[in-house]
């Protein structure tokens, strides 16, 4: 590859990994800080992506919108809609034990995916949404540097916000609940509400990640929102990076994305008869890798600092 090509790839890579890092930070609020299992990341990611896409894309006859709004509006709407969805999910599942919550979130994500796939009037169904604007695209066209800057800015803001939340009394309450739930109840704390708040906050960042993804590619369709991609990979990123540690979540995103991208190079060289299995093979490789990380660094690359 030429130097220019390499640089382009590096920018593409960093942008994509940065988007994942925003989502992984969201999961780190839900799991790392609050101890809630969310296997429905893809659902909140999709809501954010579609919310921003519908609001910011140019008007089309076949579906709702687009409303041609500024991207910044789309990003905030993505945060708001995914937070709202999380609030509803969290409210309905309140009181479920954490393992049941996990099962419920799988169902929720699948439901969201089916809605996205089938409600053509809203999402244009399997044909997806096109012409989603790029940041400052009206002046510069799709510009990889600008997109990277936007993602980097969002990531920095997300990191700062979550670090601040973690260090606040609210964050200590989350920690207290995670390590001694009954004790927190006995201390007169509204445990259910604190949980709900963490769930909603985390989902908001997942939605933001989804919106960034939409503006990065300019096109989204239901295929991108299956469980393998956003849910499974983000969990791997957080666990490998170090759940409970925000820097770990970011590091994990970049490392796992590098490896995930690397496995594609590998599977591209597979003999023809195996090519159809490539996707499954990549998941298997990543799964193996997580096993190794868990054996040698059970708390991830950057363990939680209590």
């Amino acid at each position, binding site marked *: 590859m030429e130097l220019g090509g390499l640089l382009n790839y590096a920018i593409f890579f960093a942008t994509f990994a940065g988007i994942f890092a925003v989502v992984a930070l969201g999961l780190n609020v839900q799991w790392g800080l609050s101890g809630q299992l969310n296997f429905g990341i893809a659902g909140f990611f999709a809501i954010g992506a579609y919310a921003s896409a519908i609001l910011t894309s140019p008007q089309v006859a076949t579906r709702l919108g687009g409303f041609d709004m500024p991207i910044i509006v789309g990003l905030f709407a993505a945060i708001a809609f995914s937070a709202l969805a999380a609030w509803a999910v969290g409210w309905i599942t309140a009181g479920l034990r954490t393992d049941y919550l996990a099962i419920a979130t799988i169902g929720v994500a699948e439901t969201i995916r089916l809605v996205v796939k089938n409600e053509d009037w809203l999402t244009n169904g399997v044909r997806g949404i096109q012409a989603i604007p790029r940041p400052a695209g009206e002046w510069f066209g799709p510009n990889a540097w600008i997109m990277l800057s936007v993602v980097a800015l969002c990531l920095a803001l997300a990191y700062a916000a979550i670090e601040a939340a973690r260090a606040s009394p609210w964050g200590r309450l989350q*920690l*207290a609940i995670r*390590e001694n739930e009954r*004790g*927190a109840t006995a*201390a*007169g704390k*509204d445990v259910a509400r604190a949980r709900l708040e963490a769930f909603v906050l985390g989902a908001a960042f997942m939605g933001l990640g989804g919106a960034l993804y939409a503006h990065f590619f300019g096109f989204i369709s239901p295929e991108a929102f299956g469980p393998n991609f956003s849910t499974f990979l983000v969990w791997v990123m957080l666990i490998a990076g170090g759940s409970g540690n925000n820097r770990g979540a970011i590091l994990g995103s970049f490392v796992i994305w590098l490896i995930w991208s690397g496995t594609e190079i590998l599977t591209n060289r597979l003999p023809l008869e195996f090519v159809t299995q490539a996707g499954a093979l990549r998941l298997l490789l990543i799964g193996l890798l997580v096993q190794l990380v868990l054996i040698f660094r059970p708390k991830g690359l950057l363990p939680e600092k209590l």
Partner: protein
Amino acid sequence: MSDLLAIEAVHGGYGTADILNGADLRISGPEIVVIIGPNGAGKSTLMKAVFGLVRVRVGNIRFNGEDITNMRADLVAERGLAYVPQERNVFPSLTVDENLDMGAYLKRDDGKRKTAIYEIFPQLRLRRAQRAGSLSGGERQMLAMGRALMIEPKLLLLDEPTAALAPRLVDETLEKIVEIRSLGIGVLMVEQNAKAALRRADRGVVMVMGRVRLEDEAHNLLARTDIADLFLGA
């Protein structure tokens, strides 16, 4: 004047079977009331029922004249009732200071309450930046009580505050409880060190099989040989 706490004919428990079978108990103000009774009598369950952690099936519980039967624990706490469970009553990875903050409720503490609590438990002040997990058993119990006092309760429920403490610390802890009463706070406590507790208490109740079987002034209970033989140890 209504009672501070009134537990009336309460039945309830964990699943289908009742542990509490018509428990009655009243606390009229800043007094120390000790619950004694055999293991499994339902003493801890009664405290949890008052605090909304165990379902009351029949009967009712009033606090300061207000019905709090089956009220959510955080709302009970908001009304001025604090509860210290017997076990796991601190947050090990938080510091002493942060543990106390956990008790601060609704209104942020301007530092006054914490200062007052450090006055009652000076040894905690020395360890304020230390993690609760590294405290000794006695210090941990003090911290749990301190945390409970942070909500400025009118009534404090203590489940076996001296269990698992060295004898020397039992008296020290009980003296702290007397000090708490002198602040105008009522204390309802379960105690296995019944004699030592009754000596400092105003009243005592004997609970057997989910009911309060006997209730009297503490010094009367101490004087009764039948009670002594059954519940007060040698």
